[in-house]
């Protein structure tokens, strides 16, 4: 619970200082992780799903949410390739499922990925396969983003008298 609430506090702070002011000014805000991370991670830690959703009800719903999906094995391989030591909480070591960090990571993050799959449906996240090359992914992302921005551009002239 404290893990969940501390992250929510941090999120609230960033929302009010870093996200809402630029949105009010008409800027595009790119958020690296959002409330969905909390939904997935906290539920995996045994926090009530509905409670976390209500907790974050003060958040702004994004115009576009991209979920980069990757199989757990690839996730582990990529992390191990550049970093030997997995972070304690990232590996879910606090849950005591395994004393081996890599094994714990695999179990914990595997469950987190299952939670993300629920969220895709519930919140309409756009799934981007993160298996392909960076260029391939970027092409998909640019497609989705430009589509989103054009939709917004079309709406503006509609509101003005012809």
């Amino acid at each position, binding site marked *: 619970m404290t893990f969940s609430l501390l992250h929510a506090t941090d999120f*609230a702070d960033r929302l009010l200082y870093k996200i809402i002011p630029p949105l009010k000014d008409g800027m595009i805000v790119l958020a690296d992780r959002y409330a969905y991370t909390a939904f997935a991670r906290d539920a995996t830690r045994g926090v009530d799903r509905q409670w976390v959703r*209500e907790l974050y009800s003060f958040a702004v719903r994004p115009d576009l949410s991209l979920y980069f999906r990757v199989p757990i094995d690839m996730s582990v391989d990529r992390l191990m390739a550049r970093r030997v030591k997995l972070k304690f909480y990232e590996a879910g070591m606090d849950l005591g499922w395994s004393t081996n960090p890599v094994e714990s990571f695999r179990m914990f993050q595997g469950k987190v990925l299952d939670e993300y799959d629920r969220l895709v449906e519930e919140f309409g996240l756009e799934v981007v396969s993160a298996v392909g090359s960076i260029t391939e992914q970027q092409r998909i992302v640019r497609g989705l983003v430009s589509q989103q921005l054009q939709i917004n551009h079309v709406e503006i002239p509609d509101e003005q008298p012809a």
Partner: protein
Amino acid sequence: MNSQPDTPDLANAGASSDIQAGRYYGRGIPYLPIEGYPGKLIAIEGTDGVGRSTQIQLLREWLEVKGYGVIETGWTRSPLMQPTIELAKSSNTLNKLTFVLLYATDFADRMEKEIIPALKAGFVVLSDRYIFTALARAGVRGVDRLWLRSLYGFGIAPHLVFYLNVDVKTLIARVLAARGMDFWESGMDLKVGDDIYDSFRAYQSKLLKEYGSMADEFHFRVVDARRSIDKIQEELRKQVAAFLEPGAASKSDG
């Protein structure tokens, strides 16, 4: 960020109709089932300077003499959060939302690490303030009341909630005589004015109203706190004894 845009279910958010002492108010902490724990949770509520700590100290001594194991817990006293809360209060970056969430984190830490283990072990837990202080403070700052109740759905409904009730005039005299007015207790963050006396008066009046509005919802036992320390203590002991030892309730105790 709720998947259903309609308001949260009041029944799950902790409405008075289904509050059961010793149970979670709302959705609770799924990985910590608390049913059947032998301990008792007694909350002493009331605004700043009303005399809570004095009463708790006396109550504790009395209970311990009677053979009860007693632990105390108090607002913002968690080892995890106390330094953070003090730091945040001393800077100017706190807003009403982060304020609420820091308090909630502190409470969650004490819930998991102090209150629930003590209830499991059969202690009487005396809580100096409880979630009502958080609800009142956030309520007067305009935070959504339904959201607050959902947030605190992981709290346990105490077996007894004593609300030490006082009027703002008595409160002012008492606080001035004791230690003077403090920035936060005067609600100076609300910036209603530069004068601490006026701000204290306005803020505490609102707080008292907010506490009062929760009395029915959360089954407060309202205690008139304008009386002497001894008189208040006598009433608390009488009610606590009647609850803990229903058989011996008629026997008066000094």
